[in-house]
């Protein structure tokens, strides 16, 4: 990392830490929502941005995490923190099974399969209401044994998970795994001809990505949602994840962070106009980005900063 990159990371972290001190409870909740989508977009970016795998199931994996935890609390009486961890593990396991089934497929077939999975799961959660409480909603007890939810504390927990997620993804993509994933994204046949077990590495990326989404889903539900419903699997949730990553900058570490913050704030501002106005904004932004600057806002910024020598030009993993 260059000095500028370190400085930017410290400033961003400082700004994030100031949020609970200066904002009211409502705005803290908005900021926590942004962090939730930072995690989902960052983990989804590992799939599309690094491995070139297009999945529409990221919101579904967050739901797997949240529902696992909520159902364990309801039916088994486990403490929420245990539920969150189990939720992450179950999401990773489901991710592994789904990946085993469909990662031999490529392109549109894979994408269709993940949409199918997501929709089936949503319908099952809705129909099996005796077990899942369906559209009535599943109550999520607060993460900590407290009478009143503390949004500032909840925000800090989400921030910790977001940081852990960013560090984990950074380490993952700056290792041999990152080389394999990028090679798969660039040319899957050649990657295989170069000795890379492409199916195995796509499955690995899928499992890591689902694990992070599952943890985020459970944690956010216990801290800020209180009652979850199958609506969290609607494709409009997935649209936010997709738009945030593409608008911010696919295949970069900072892109999904910038995109998620931008779009969640945009969503809140537009909520006053109409509850669905934000979807229009996302659609327009995605079209504009895909048409004019495919590498997203961070991609634009990257070129400027690189030409001034502020960003590293040599991937750290290839340096001696």
């Amino acid at each position, binding site marked *: 990392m260059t000095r500028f990159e370190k400085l930017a990371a410290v400033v961003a972290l400082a700004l994030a830490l100031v949020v609970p001190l200066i904002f009211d409870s409502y705005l803290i909740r908005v900021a926590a929502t942004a962090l939730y989508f930072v995690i989902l977009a960052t983990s989804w970016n590992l799939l599309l941005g690094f491995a070139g795998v297009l999945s529409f199931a990221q919101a579904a994996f967050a739901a797997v995490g949240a529902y696992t935890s909520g159902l364990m609390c309801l039916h088994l009486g486990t403490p929420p923190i245990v539920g969150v961890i189990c939720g992450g593990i179950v999401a990773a396991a489901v991710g592994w099974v789904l990946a085993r089934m469909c990662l031999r497929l490529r392109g549109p077939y894979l994408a269709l399969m993940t949409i199918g999975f997501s929709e089936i799961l949503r319908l099952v959660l809705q129909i099996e209401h005796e077990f899942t409480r369906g559209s009535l909603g599943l109550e999520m007890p607060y993460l900590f044994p407290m009478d009143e939810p503390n949004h500032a504390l909840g925000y800090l927990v989400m921030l910790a998970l977001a940081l852990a997620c960013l560090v984990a993804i950074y380490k993952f993509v700056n290792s041999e795994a990152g080389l394999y994933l990028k090679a798969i994204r660039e*040319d899957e046949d050649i990657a295989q001809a170069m000795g890379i077990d492409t199916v195995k590495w796509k499955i690995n990326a899928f499992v890591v990505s689902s694990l992070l989404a599952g943890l985020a889903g459970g944690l956010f539900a216990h801290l800020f949602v209180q009652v979850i419903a199958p609506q969290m699997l609607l494709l409009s949730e997935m649209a936010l994840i997709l738009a945030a990553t593409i608008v911010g900058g696919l295949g970069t570490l900072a892109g999904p962070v910038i995109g998620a913050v931008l779009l969640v704030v945009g969503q809140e501002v537009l909520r006053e106009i109409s509850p669905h106005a934000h979807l229009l904004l996302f659609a327009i932004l995605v079209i504009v980005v895909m048409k004019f600057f495919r590498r997203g806002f961070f991609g634009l910024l990257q070129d400027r900063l690189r030409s001034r020598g502020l960003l590293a030009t040599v991937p750290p993993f290839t340096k001696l």
Partner: protein
Amino acid sequence: MWSEGDYRVTAASPIFEVEDASLAFGGNRALDSVSFNMVAGELLGLIGPNGSGKTTLLNAVGSIYPLSDGKISFERQRIDSLSMHEVTRAGIGRMFQAPRIFPHMTCMENLLAAGFAVREDAESREDLIHRGEELLTSLTIDRFRDTVAGSMSGGQRMLLQFARTLMLRPRLLLLDEPFGGVHPKLIEVMLERIRTLHEDGLTIIMVSHDLPTIMGLSQRIIALANGKLIADGTPAEVREDPVVIDAYLGG
């Protein structure tokens, strides 16, 4: 550490065997009972008119297409039912006709992706980087070490692809038209490297339309036409073979 001498093999028994290999696409027999053997250290030229099955044969060896019939073995191991990455790990390195490098990755990333995928545990990241740097230097493209590969010229990409294939440390090297679109000066660099590898005992199959070059380089030539093996012999024998002349000129 890796050294040029590691390729030297003394055994004279065949290390690469193709037996009755056939491959059909629908009704079209792209390969028709092709059989030949190679001993270690041989440099074999593979020639034939367009559509004769040269690339298809290499694709069959690399498990890109499964054989419909017959078998292929390398170092006494059947490789025709392995998947692509397993064939590579078994010691067969393939260079493609079009320079299919990883365009958004730097040259060093291109090399390391291949190096890591087949590395033995003893080789560290630093070893691989050193080996990559040596290869880039010997192929005169070391100044592009940290350049994104997609910004290089066609000829330079070919050299990068060559370096990436050598990162695999193959014991059998498959070269498909390695000089296509490459500047004459760079061809000289590649030829020099191929000669060195051959002298060090690496087994090589090379496909080329450049008959003078391939005849000058190889000790043995096999010729394909319509998926059939029509000649197998020294360059002089194959050059005089009426069947080969007919296949090339008679269309």
